[in-house]
Structure formats: C-alpha cells, structure tokens
C-alpha cells in the first residue's frame, strides 16, 4: 500500500491538528533521511506524510548566555556550524559532524535523530550529558520532558503519534566547562557508530572534577548516562588511574550486541578506552580556553 496523502501544514497548530485528525497512519517527515529509507525497505508504511518543511520557526538555534534552544528542524550541518568556535559545546559539533556525509547532514535534523531513537543515534549521548529537555506539542497542548525519560528503547519514545517535537533545550554548562564526543566506527566517514562516548566536564577552581556528566551510545538498547562512573569521579582530581577505573565502570553498564561490525567484548573494551579519552579532551579544552 502506497502513501495516500502528502500534507504541508504552515504552522505548528495546523501540523498538530492534522496529525490528530489523520491518526497513527500519518508520519511526520523532516529531512526524511531515516523515514524514506525505512519506507523503501517496507519497515514503515505511512498512509499519510505530514511534511514539516514549511515550519520555519523550528529551524533556528537560539543560544543565549544561560539557555540554548534548538528547533527540532535544525540540521546536523547547522549544529556543526553554529558551535564550531565554542569550546563549551564543541562536543555537539563532534557529534553532528560524524553523521553520514555532507548530503545527509544538510537534510537530517536533530528532531528526526531523537524521534527515530536509534541506539546508535549520534546526537543522543552528548545531549544526555547536557541534561537536555524535549518540548512537544500535541492535542493537549505543549509538554516538556527530560530527554533521558523521553527515550524508551530502539525506535521507541514517549511521544504519541500526534505529538510534534518542537524544541530541544538545555542549560549551557557554566564556569570552567567543556564537552567532547568520540565515536568508533569501522571507517572514518559514513558509518554508524560501533560505540560512542560523550563527556561534559566542569572543573572547580582548584582543579577538581566538580560537574561530571558522561554518556555512552550504541552500547545498549538506548544511549545511557554512566552514573556509576560519574559518582566515582565527582569531587576528585582527574588522575589517570581514576579515569581508567571510570571507563571500566561505564563499560560494565553496557549491554552491547555482537554483530558483523564488532563483538560485544570489543565494544566494552572500546567504551573503557574511549571514555577517559573524552574526559581528557574536555580538560584540554578547558585549559586552552583559559589561556
């Protein structure tokens, strides 16, 4: 059965009303980089497509001193460009720039990356470390949720079919802070993550790890925060031994799959090796920014 309807609503209210009227047969389409391929493979069979292309208000990044707000239709390329010279949020650039090739990054959006909810979605780990919140609008008006609560499992979120994700928001880490994201794939470009790690680190004036937020992607049914590793590091100086113990703790929380791309054991070792490296990258960025 092919798609029967294609709709281009002009604002959020019209979009949500359409979605409520058409029911669960209707799919939103943003960049289409996930959905169109899923349709081709017969994995999704929308009766109607509701295209978000005219919702210009959701294509903006607003980055004030305190709060950062990303419209759901912001593309990977926009993220790459907007934070290119920002050491505090540079981890978001690293996350966005490993997604596919330039063509996919021009079309693919942050909203699609989140709502598609792939275990390997590359924007998720860093957004989790930023304690990002999602803002949705549905028939019952807008609601807000923590990204960590919104994501349920592979392809599953708490979003109901008629709810539109409109914004992603987080508080900009204050003080001596930085972010970093590292991804291991089999080749450098155009490869979904075998494993990915993200760190958001804040240092106290005397050089202790004051704010430690760590996350791991592609190592479990959903990207997760490595809370045990965070607790181990919190309040301590970042010495090598403690960093590597944190890596091992984060790896032990993984429930990786074995597939053609890597064995579960290899994936765990990658988490243990990459997480300390991401933290050191943050420390380096903090140091550089202070110079």
């Amino acid at each position, binding site marked *: *059965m*092919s*798609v*029967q*309807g*294609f709709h*281009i609503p002009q604002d959020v209210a019209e979009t949500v009303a359409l979605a409520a009227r058409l029911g669960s047969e209707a799919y939103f*389409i943003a960049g*289409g*980089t996930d959905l*169109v*391929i899923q*349709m*081709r493979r017969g994995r999704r069979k929308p009766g*109607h*497509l509701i*295209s978000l*292309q005219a919702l210009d208000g959701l294509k903006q990044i607003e980055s004030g001193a305190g709060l950062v707000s990303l419209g759901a239709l912001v593309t990977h*390329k926009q993220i790459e460009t907007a934070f290119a010279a920002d050491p505090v949020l540079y981890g978001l650039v690293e996350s966005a720039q490993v997604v*596919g*090739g*330039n*063509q*996919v990054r*021009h*079309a693919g959006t942050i909203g699609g990356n989140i709502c598609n909810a792939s275990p390997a979605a590359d924007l998720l780990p860093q957004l989790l470390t930023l304690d990002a919140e999602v803002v949705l609008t549905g028939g019952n008006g807008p609601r807000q949720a923590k990204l960590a609560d919104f994501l349920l499992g592979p392809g599953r979120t708490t979003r109901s079919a008629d709810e539109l994700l409109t914004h992603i928001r987080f508080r900009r880490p204050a003080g001596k802070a930085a972010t970093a994201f590292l991804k291991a794939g089999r080749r*450098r*470009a*155009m490869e979904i993550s075998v494993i990915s790690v993200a760190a958001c680190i804040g240092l106290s004036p005397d050089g202790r790890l004051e704010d430690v937020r760590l996350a791991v992607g592609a190592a479990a049914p959903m990207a997760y925060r490595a809370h045990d590793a965070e607790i181990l590091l919190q309040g301590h100086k970042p010495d090598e031994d403690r960093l590597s113990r944190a890596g091992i703790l984060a790896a032990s929380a993984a429930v990786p799959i074995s597939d053609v791309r890597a064995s579960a054991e290899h994936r765990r070792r990658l988490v243990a090796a990459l997480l300390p490296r991401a933290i050191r990258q943050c420390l380096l960025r903090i140091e550089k920014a202070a110079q």
Partner: protein
Amino acid sequence: MSQHSVTRYPVSLQINGERYDVDVAPDTSLLDVLRDEFGLTGTKANCLEAECGVCTVLLDGKAVNACITLALQCQGRQILTIEGLAHGGELHPLQTAFIECGAVQCGYCIPGMILTAKSLLDTQPDPDEAAIREGLAGTLCRCTGYQKIVDAVAHAARQMNQQQSQIKTTTTGDRQ
C-alpha cells in the same frame, strides 16, 4: 492496489533556473522526477539509500541525496543538477579542473562528485586536503582512488579564488 488510485499532487520545482511543473505521488523521489519526468539523466542512480552520493544535487545550494529526497519536499525550492552548472557554454572551474587533472575514469560518480565539491567550496573556499576528503566523504568513486579527484577540487579552489581576487582588484581599481 492499482496504480491509478494513488493520489498525485502538483509540485512546482525550480531546476537550473527554470520552472518545471509536474504531478507526483507522495513517495516519488526527486531523483525519479529528474530522470524520468524531465530527462535530466546527468543525475545518476545507484544505491537509492544515500550511501553512494551519485545522485547528489544542490537543493537551495546545499548538496543532498536526490534518491531519498521526496519531490514534494522540494516545492518552490531551487535545484541545481549537473546540467545547470556550465554557464553560457562555458564549463564551471570544477568541471575544467576535473578534466585537466584527469580525475574522471568511468565517469559515473562525477556529476555527484562535482556537485558535492561545489557545495563544499561554496561554504569553505580554501579547504586543505583533509577538509576536501572530509567534504567529499558522502560520495563514492570505484575507479580513481580519489587522489586525482582531491587534486582537481584543490585546483578548482585555487582557480576560483584567483578569479575572485581578480574581480576584487578590478572593482577596487575602478573606484580609484
């Protein structure tokens, strides 16, 4: 489900500066419209899953994969295909550079490669070799081993920057 029961929607596309109108099904790709409706077969088809880049066109100036872009998503937007790159019979510097550097073998990837490169140079006029390789990563070539393609893009960038600075010096010259 029989073919004629599919709803078709009118869409108006600006392709290479000209307006094209067509009725398409909701899931028809831009690639199919370009090739099958308008005979613009310079845009190639291969994997149909955004993996190889041979179908690359510029949508509002930015490289995208036409194979996974729905035609209806392009309503009123500017599309540039390889057929629209040369101006008044004169090749674009990228096209000239690909010929001069011997960067073309079978040629199948080249339309997509050149448009991927154009999109890169439009935002990053002076990329180093690593930036060129990174910029082209979404488009694959089975033949050349990439070195000559990278050389051609670097060469074209130099040519374009030279032309730009010549234009600048003549305009400042005029003002004096």
